């Protein structure tokens, strides 16, 4: 399958997404905020719809919309003290509604949007790959430098604040990174399925009880395996790549359930 350029791009971008989503997703899971990824995936869909409507590159418009949604969610969660699962539910269905309205206004509910729902490995271009590579570099670098702070905040936000950490700053930084990761990923994994790639690797590796670094390393391993196996399955069985990746993830998760 490597005789095709698009397959090489698919694997490369898939592995990058696996790394990014599992590493940023780990902190979302630890903060018991898993639904954020699902929600932002739908918000980036609004960006895609707007992009299609206005003839912009959906790549950039989805990033912008995901970040705006992430900041709004964080702002409302903190300032109005609304349950975070409730605010996420509101944004999730609200975004989907908005996206559907926009595409039906534009009368363009075409394949292009459909591919953003379930992901399409065929759509990765060399340019996309470069954007992803540049962003991966910055996102992983940032996460690396603030991982101890994020860890502390996930453990106990109030205690972290009392210790003098600027909790607000780190929270906004984390949700921004997550928003961009998701916007970059929906093209490949699909907005309906990216949540799985952000959450399941960490949930599975938490079952192994290996401490923070063990959890991160196993999450990384699980997500890379699922992307490689998933894309190969998708190639040989002609099924959407996002779906096959998620199926592999679920199998890994079930496997970890048997660990005592």
């Amino acid at each position, binding site marked *: 399958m490597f005789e095709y350029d698009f397959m090489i791009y698919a694997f490369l971008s898939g592995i990058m997404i696996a790394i990014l989503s599992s590493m940023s997703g780990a902190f979302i899971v630890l903060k018991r905020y898993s639904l954020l990824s699902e929600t932002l995936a739908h918000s980036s869909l609004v960006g895609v719809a707007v992009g299609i409507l206005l003839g912009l590159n959906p790549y950039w418009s989805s990033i912008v919309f995901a970040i705006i949604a992430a900041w709004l969610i964080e702002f409302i969660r903190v300032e109005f003290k609304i349950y975070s699962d409730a605010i996420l539910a509101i944004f999730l269905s609200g975004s989907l509604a908005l996206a559907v309205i926009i595409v039906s206004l534009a009368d363009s509910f075409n394949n292009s949007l459909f591919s953003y729902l379930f992901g399409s490995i065929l759509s990765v271009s060399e340019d996309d790959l470069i954007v992803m590579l540049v962003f991966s570099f910055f996102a992983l670098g940032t996460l690396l*430098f603030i991982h*101890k702070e994020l860890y502390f905040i996930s453990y106990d936000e109030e205690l972290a604040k009392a210790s003098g950490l600027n909790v607000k700053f780190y929270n906004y930084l984390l949700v921004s990174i997550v928003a961009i990761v998701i916007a970059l990923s929906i093209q490949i994994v699909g907005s309906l399925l990216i949540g799985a790639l952000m959450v399941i690797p960490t949930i599975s590796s938490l079952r192994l009880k*290996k401490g923070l670094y063990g959890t991160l390393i196993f999450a990384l391993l699980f997500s890379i395996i699922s992307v490689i196996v998933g894309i190969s399955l998708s190639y040989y069985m002609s099924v959407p790549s996002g779906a096959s990746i998620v199926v592999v993830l679920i199998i890994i998760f079930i496997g970890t359930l048997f660990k005592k």
Partner: protein
Amino acid sequence: MKFSSSVFEVKNLCLLRNKQDVLKNVSFTIFKGDYIALIGPNGGGKSTLVKTLLKLISATSGTIKILGQNQSKFNAWDKIGYVPQRASLLDDNFPASVLDVVKMGLIVKNKHKLFFNSSFNHLLDDAMKKMNVLHLKDRQIGELSGGQRQRVMIARALVSKPEVLILDEPNTGVDAKHQKDFYVLLKKLNKDEKITIIFITHDIGVIADDIDGVMFINSTLRVSKTPTKDLSCNIFSKVYGFDAHMLTHRGKHV
């Protein structure tokens, strides 16, 4: 009279929450080296007062000075160790060993570093030894008993060598023997290491001999510097009843 500088200097602190006075005109000064018990009925505002001192909640009015600085300018938070009330009730699945949790107390001193500075290792060991949790070092925090977790949380608060230790009912869930050890330890921290201690508790009788002062709070504050003498049933009924309103300005802690 002690001629020492103040750790907390609070003047006319008021806090309204949902149109209710949670803290009403609270003023006091706590000096370096003091060992203060903060007592009062459930809902009296003990935790709220402490959180306001720590800037976790903003006051409606009044001024707070920490180590001589206005709270808004203060940023040496690693000098203040805090053990919150619900510290032992955290998520069982969180991937953290005892060592990881104690390390959290040093994160502010190791900001934006990839790794911990290994010169801090002895601080970690010291704090764990002090709280008698060194043998639990590699155990997951979620697998420990409530009392053990509580001791880990205190080790976390001590690891940055704070000048002040604020404990919000740290002895709930600690058995009688460990409680006694715990009080001995607090006294030692206070006397030997000169750590200022603010201790929220419901059973003050046990530490009455150790402490330098009592603050009774039931939205308003009453301060006393002669705990043993004042700890009559009379005052207890007053504190835990409704009426702790009369403010007697005596002694140094006003």
